[in-house]
């Protein structure tokens, strides 16, 4: 195969550079992600909507952009992304009721727009309210449909590894001029 001849003629330094190029691409993606985390203040600044509980506003597969400004008070109507303690998957629902104390303690109740009942059934046993610490961020913008790729990749992990593997091999074996 002719492209192998390109690779066989590379010296040690050029081979090392191929791996470094791959490393640079991964690092760039990583640094952009960490940069977003710092810029938005949210530990997960981009999330995918997984269920239809916020229709017709958000559909399954929409990509959401979050910020987590702790100074900005939580108000009813905000679309909050939160995690229930002990569970991995973040939930995207709307804030229904907010209670604020003078000392700054805030507790609030959420509900999906498309759900018949509020989220108390989803909270941990005994938990009736959410607190600021449960919030990953609040939605500031969205892009429709694009998140479906992530959903498919997570439903079929072999597909994800195949795509990533192929991309990696392509980068490693592609010798640039």
């Amino acid at each position: 195969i002719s492209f192998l001849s390109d690779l066989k003629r590379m010296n040690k330094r050029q081979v090392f550079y191929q791996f470094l190029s791959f490393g640079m691409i991964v690092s760039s993606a990583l640094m952009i992600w960490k940069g977003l985390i710092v810029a938005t203040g949210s530990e997960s600044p981009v999330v995918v909507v997984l269920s239809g509980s916020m229709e017709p506003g958000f559909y399954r597969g929409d990509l959401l952009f979050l910020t987590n400004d702790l100074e900005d008070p939580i108000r009813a109507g905000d679309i909050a992304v939160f995690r229930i303690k002990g569970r991995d998957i973040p939930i995207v629902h709307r804030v229904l009721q907010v209670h604020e104390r003078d000392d700054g303690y805030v507790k609030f109740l959420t509900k999906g727009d498309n759900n018949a009942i509020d989220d108390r059934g989803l909270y941990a046993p005994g938990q009736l309210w959410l607190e600021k610490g449960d919030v990953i961020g609040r939605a500031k913008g969205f892009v429709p449909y694009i998140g479906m790729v992530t959903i498919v990749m997570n439903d079929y992990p072999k597909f994800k590894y195949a795509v990533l593997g192929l991309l990696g091999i392509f980068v490693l074996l592609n010798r640039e001029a």
Partner: protein
Amino acid sequence: MSQENAPIKIDKWDGNALKNALDDAAKKIMNESYGLVESFKLIDGRLALCSIAVSCSLFALLWDFLYPFPASKTVLIICVACYFILTGVISVYLLYFEGGVFYVGLEKDKAGIDPDDKWTLQSSLKKYDDQYCLKITYTGGVSKQTRSVERVCSVTEFFDEEGTLCYDLYEATVKGLKDSLSADKKAK
């Protein structure tokens, strides 16, 4: 690099492969026919910069793993800023310092006293184009003067229909270029 004498065969429609084949052949000619010693300083500079950038991002990854956000905020900001500054530096380095240079060969002084003369090879081949430009620059070790000559040829002059490099033809062209510079040197 192994001393293979098998002819180089590539996909003649792949611009990258064409340029790489011609560059590799030129390197081989300079090393073998003229006994130049290849200097890797330029490449090592680039490798070092990229390695530092990648280590920066790996450090950020590790730190954030050990001390999850928001405790890691300051370290993350520093690492991200460093990384992108380094990326900018690397781009500048590639554009101005390397600028298409794919080979630097040192001509050792026979007496071993004077600093080495430097032969630099640069090439360019635009995407989807057939015009390969080879530039040889001579920098005197003692005089510090530079002289260069460049030649633009179509890649069709050196590759046959199968995509095999006609080494002899290319060797003649490269040697002709270099010798014209050497002759210039002697004449002056």
